[in-house]
């Protein structure tokens, strides 16, 4: 972990416009919770909260936030060429990747879990028997996993954002609906599995299709694998093409 890199990355990621927009996105979550409180059926609070945090929170907010921070952590510098200042230093590539990953994951978790916690509390009127803390904790882990995947993606392709979106929408969205097997490799489903086991959520409200053990194994595999790929690609970073 390198403090200077961390600070620079933090300043890059949390630019005013970006932070504001993402807070706005999180605000939608809170808004919807508020609307439900005002106009929804009290009896359905728990299923609603589960759907809110599961679909809008884990399914929509978490991937979007992680995508922005994950692809921006090092992708922007690679694209405009400022990465060279970071790389022409006697710092191991592993340190660079890990530092940026941690910063991106922390920012993602903050801007995902914060609104989720608030929205969950409002909609369920409390912690809802572990539903809210479980979902929030799961989302923190999910943010880390997503960030690892997107950081690796940004070092592999120049259009990391589009490919990341394709992964979220097509793999996790479309295909997971059609083929149950793909769920095991979907960060969304892993997150829900973590949420379920951490929060101890009763079966009637919510049941994750993937077991907790599978989630831990696959999650670790994903995290370590993506990080290793990222480190490898950065170590072999080449600047090609003659300047005009």
């Amino acid at each position, binding site marked *: 972990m390198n403090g200077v890199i961390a600070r620079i990355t933090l*300043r890059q990621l949390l630019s005013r416009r970006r932070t504001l927009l993402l807070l706005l996105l999180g605000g939608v979550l809170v808004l919807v919770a508020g609307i439900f409180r005002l106009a929804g059926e009290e009896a359905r609070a728990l299923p609603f909260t589960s759907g809110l945090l599961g679909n809008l929170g884990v399914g929509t907010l978490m991937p979007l936030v992680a995508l922005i921070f994950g692809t921006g952590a090092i992708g922007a510098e690679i694209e405009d060429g400022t990465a060279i200042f970071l790389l022409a230093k006697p710092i191991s590539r592993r340190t660079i990747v890990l530092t940026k990953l941690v910063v991106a994951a922390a920012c993602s978790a903050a801007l995902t879990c914060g609104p989720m916690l608030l929205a969950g509390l409002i909609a369920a009127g409390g912690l809802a028997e572990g539903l809210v803390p479980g979902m929030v904790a799961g989302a923190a882990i999910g943010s880390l996993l997503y960030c690892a995947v997107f950081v690796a993606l940004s070092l592999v392709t120049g259009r990391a954002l589009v490919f990341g979106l394709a992964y979220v929408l097509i793999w996790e969205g479309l295909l997971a609906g059609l083929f149950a097997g793909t769920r095991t490799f979907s960060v969304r489903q892993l997150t829900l599995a973590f949420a379920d086991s951490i929060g101890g959520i009763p079966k009637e409200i919510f049941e994750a299709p993937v077991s907790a053990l599978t989630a831990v194994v696959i999650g670790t595999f994903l995290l370590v694998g993506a990080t290793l790929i990222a480190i490898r690609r950065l170590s072999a970073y080449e600047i090609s093409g003659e300047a005009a």
Partner: protein
Amino acid sequence: MDPGAVVELTNASRWYGNVVAVNDISFQLAGGVTGLLGPNGAGKSTILHMVAGFLAPSSGSVTVGGEPSWRHPEMYRRIGLVPEREAVYPFLTGREFAAANARLQGMAPAEAAEAAARAIGLVELDDAADRPIGTYSKGMRQRAKVAAGLVHDPSILLLDEPFNGMDPRQRLHMMDLLHRMAAEGRTILFSSHILEEVERLAGRVLVIVSGRLAASGDFREIRRLMTDRPHTFTLRSSDDRALASALLAESTTAGAALDGGILTVRTNDFGAFSRAVTGIARRHQIRLHELLPTDESLESVFSYLVRR
């Protein structure tokens, strides 16, 4: 001089598929200022990127201080890099940028701040050092990059088109700075396609044409080695026409032209001609006022090499 400040290319080549960007180049640099000169697309940036460890040679070797430059982050302790691309972190001030680079080089915060201040002073960026780089002009951004490149007192400095965007005064100042640094024993390698810059700054020139090393060394020496091309002189004397006819009788003269009152003489043998001309003038009782070689500029050397 630091023994680690030696840059060596040995039969280094780099190709992309069918395109050969650098073709079997060998040279060794140990101290002094060396200029990479060549037309756009000749391979100068490719060579610089290979030395800087950002491109692997497809064959041959590129070493810095004896170690291969590729995948060797430790070597950056003694290399300072000033890249060509303009982009820098726009939200950092010049001072912060230099200090950040110093910190990343492993300096403690206090040490880094001091080094940054020194570097900013060297490039004369003190006035604007506390404004964000995003507000800088092109020349200022260039100077900020140079400050960041030498903040850790590297023994090797690599600069890619360093005078881009600088006004003449800034350029002179930068050249002065680089001369001083080289005199302290550093190895400086810079690339340019602008002849005047290289002529003025580089003690040694590496002329790169289409990926190949066309010539290396002091450019006046290179000119002297170009024996298949006649040297051209202009002469002013008390009787140009008589001198011209006398010179034409000499075997060392390849041609003489009297054009608009100016006598131009071409010769294949620079040495013999310069020895002979004074004797000829004396014998014919012609007073020689001026004898000027006219094509010893880097430009003529360069255009010759490029067209070869």
